[in-house]
């Protein structure tokens, strides 16, 4: 964290001018606890996401260890189910979402020419809710009955039957939801009200657009999840029967409410990833983004459609055929705006002066693998196919292509892309490329074969499997351990950069053209744009 002393210098420089936003002059840990600076909070979000990424990753490795052989070897089925549940919750709410909120905190004010986020203290609170939620999620392992083994979707009737760990998880989801909603209100207000003069909405970098739309999705979808888990909580303790069949409730109702949140959630994760890619690809193609306006409209279209496709996650609950058809067609429709985005990225690269530094490699990896994940999504959108593939490893493969090769690759692209801006130091390019290529190969080794397992009928969320699935599972497990080791290269590279990285050039990426690159020094000072930039 060598960025810290640097940031201090600038803070003091500005204090002389009486602009001291800097955490009331606290040092050490209190500086981070009391900070209201968007860059500090962005850094906190990113460190938190990084830690959670490795916690969730260790859980995934335990899962893959158990699946190396058929039969039960290392962990009991209950613990296996708990791992599957926590892995999902931690990766989604603990790793991917905070990582992108971290990017938003760092980049949005610098990209639109604002001095900070609109509500700086609220911003601090949004972040500091997260460690408490994470403690509850992980603490659930240490109470009688352990963490819930429901799967991340927290379906009843299991939720009604679980032990006290379920209550801790429900509260964790409440806190996470609160954090996301507050963060989103902040982001929307910042983008709508704090743009520099001349920075019209159709001029803000696409990353800001995707975050603006994501923030609206969060404000609309997270409260629905909060409602769903609240109903589960009252079913458990206060004698209500929303989902409890014994009192006339309906477990399928939960699935509808959950996925009304759950599908927008998919785009809450994917849209900021699209935003990062839309910054990285033009920079390394040395061309402006192709079809900026169509990107904005496509993003909005995806966001709106995401609210009317939820039941494609639950084709097998016995809904009327008319319902299945509606959700199938609506889901297929989403491929249109998503296709617009993919073609725009490809068109941006077309006839560009391409170079392939690590951020660009991750962006191209994203482009290819996310598109593959999108295709398997279309396959699963088809009712007759999905009824066959529902709850098999095909689904697991599909959503890891969009979550890992989609969101996570884009997060890595963003980190390598912006690290010089944030720290003033260059990462080691050779190590970065090793990280990319090993991640790419091992990712496919884990998840490509899971398509075959799913087609052959291997069900998900079960610690044991039929003998015939062993070979592909072993390949997948070996890939998982390779993937985990490859991430250590990233950790090493990150710490090496922070401790002793080469100083970064003012414009390490010559094709980058947003105002955080063109109007600000590298590294970005602690306070930026206290007087709005002059834009032509």
């Amino acid at each position, binding site marked *: 964290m060598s960025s810290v002393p640097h940031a201090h210098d600038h803070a003091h420089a500005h204090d002389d001018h009486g602009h001291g936003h800097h955490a009331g002059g606290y040092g050490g840990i209190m500086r981070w606890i009391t900070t209201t600076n968007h860059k500090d909070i962005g850094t906190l979000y990113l460190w938190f996401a990084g830690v959670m990424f490795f916690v969730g990753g260790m859980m995934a490795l335990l899962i893959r260890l158990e699946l190396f052989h058929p039969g039960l070897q290392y962990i009991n089925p209950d613990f296996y189910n708990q791992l599957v549940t926590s892995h999902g919750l931690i990766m989604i709410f603990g790793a991917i979402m905070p990582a992108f909120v971290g990017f938003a905190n760092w980049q949005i004010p610098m990209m639109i020419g604002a001095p900070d986020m609109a*509500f700086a203290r609220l911003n601090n609170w949004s972040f500091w809710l997260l460690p408490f939620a994470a403690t509850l999620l992980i603490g659930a392992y240490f109470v009688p009955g352990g963490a819930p083994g429901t799967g991340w979707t927290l379906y009843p009737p299991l939720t009604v039957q679980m032990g006290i760990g379920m209550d801790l998880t429900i509260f964790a989801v409440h806190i996470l939801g609160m954090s996301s*909603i507050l963060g989103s209100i902040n982001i929307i207000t910042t983008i709508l009200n*704090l743009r520099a003069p001349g920075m019209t909405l159709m001029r803000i970098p696409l990353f800001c657009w995707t975050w603006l739309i994501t923030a609206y999705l969060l404000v609309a979808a997270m409260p629905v999840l909060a409602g*769903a888990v609240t109903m589960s909580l009252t079913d458990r303790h206060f004698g209500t029967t929303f989902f409890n069949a014994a009192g006339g409730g309906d477990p399928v109702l939960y699935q509808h409410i959950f996925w009304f949140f759950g599908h927008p959630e998919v785009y809450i994760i994917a849209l900021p990833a699209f935003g990062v890619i839309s910054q990285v690809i033009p920079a390394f193609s040395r061309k402006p983004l192709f079809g900026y306006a169509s990107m904005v409209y496509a993003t909005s279209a995806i966001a709106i459609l995401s609210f009317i496709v939820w039941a494609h996650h639950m084709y097998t609950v016995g809904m009327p055929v008319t319902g299945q058809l509606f959700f199938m067609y609506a889901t297929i429709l989403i491929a249109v705006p998503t296709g617009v985005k993919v073609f725009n990225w490809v068109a941006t690269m077309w006839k560009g002066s391409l170079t392939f530094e690590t951020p660009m490699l991750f962006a191209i990896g994203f482009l290819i693998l996310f598109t593959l994940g999108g295709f398997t999504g279309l396959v699963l959108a088809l009712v007759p196919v999905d009824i066959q593939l529902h709850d098999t490893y095909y689904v697991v493969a599909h959503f890891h292509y969009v979550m890992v090769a989609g969101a996570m690759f884009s997060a890595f692209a963003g980190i390598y892309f912006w690290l010089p801006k944030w720290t003033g130091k260059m990462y080691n390019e050779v190590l970065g490329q090793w990280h990319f290529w090993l991640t790419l190969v091992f990712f496919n080794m884990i998840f490509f074969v899971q398509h075959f397992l799913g087609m052959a009928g291997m069900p998900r969320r079960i610690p044991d499997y039929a003998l015939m699935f062993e070979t592909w599972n072993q390949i997948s497990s070996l890939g998982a351990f390779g993937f985990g080791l490859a991430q250590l290269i990233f950790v090493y590279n990150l710490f090496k950069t922070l401790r002793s990285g080469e100083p970064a050039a003012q414009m390490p990426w010559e094709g980058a053209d947003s105002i955080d690159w063109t109007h600000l020094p590298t590294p970005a000072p602690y306070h930026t744009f206290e007087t709005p930039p002059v834009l032509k």
Partner: protein
Amino acid sequence: MNLEKQNLLLSRKLAVIAIGMFGFGFALVPFYNQICAALGVNSIEERAEAPANSQIDRSRTVTIELDSNAHNLPWRFKPVVNRVTVHPGELTTVEYEIVNVRGAPVTGQAVPSYGPQIAGEYFKKIECFCFTQQTLAAGETRRLPVVFIVDPRLPKDVSTIAVSYTFFEVAGRGGKS
């Protein structure tokens, strides 16, 4: 209007959306029940009308296999006979026996399920213990009937219907219904 006021106003509007969406989650509950009623989904739990036309299709027989589960409930719950063979359209009565083995009253609710799933809408129950919650005193034994008709429109390829009832304990009632 200065910036601070604008920010506050916008944040309030967004907070109202968030609170509204929290309420919307709960509003989905009655909405879902209305939709299900309108579309005739979940009809397997409803009481069927007494048959207007008791035409019996003697050209085919359907085997009804009866199954029972007590889910976390201190009840012994089983059908008196395990299978009956009926003609579609024929009014049939079967009985289940429940024994409450706990030394205290217990209230339970039975939920039916059918295999194949499609058979559910053709298995018309005129009378069923699953229509109401059942409260059994300590050690009580009770025989409960299911009166049903298999709709003659049952698809021709269905020759066996598995009818499975699962009793769930109604928590918090302490045996008082």
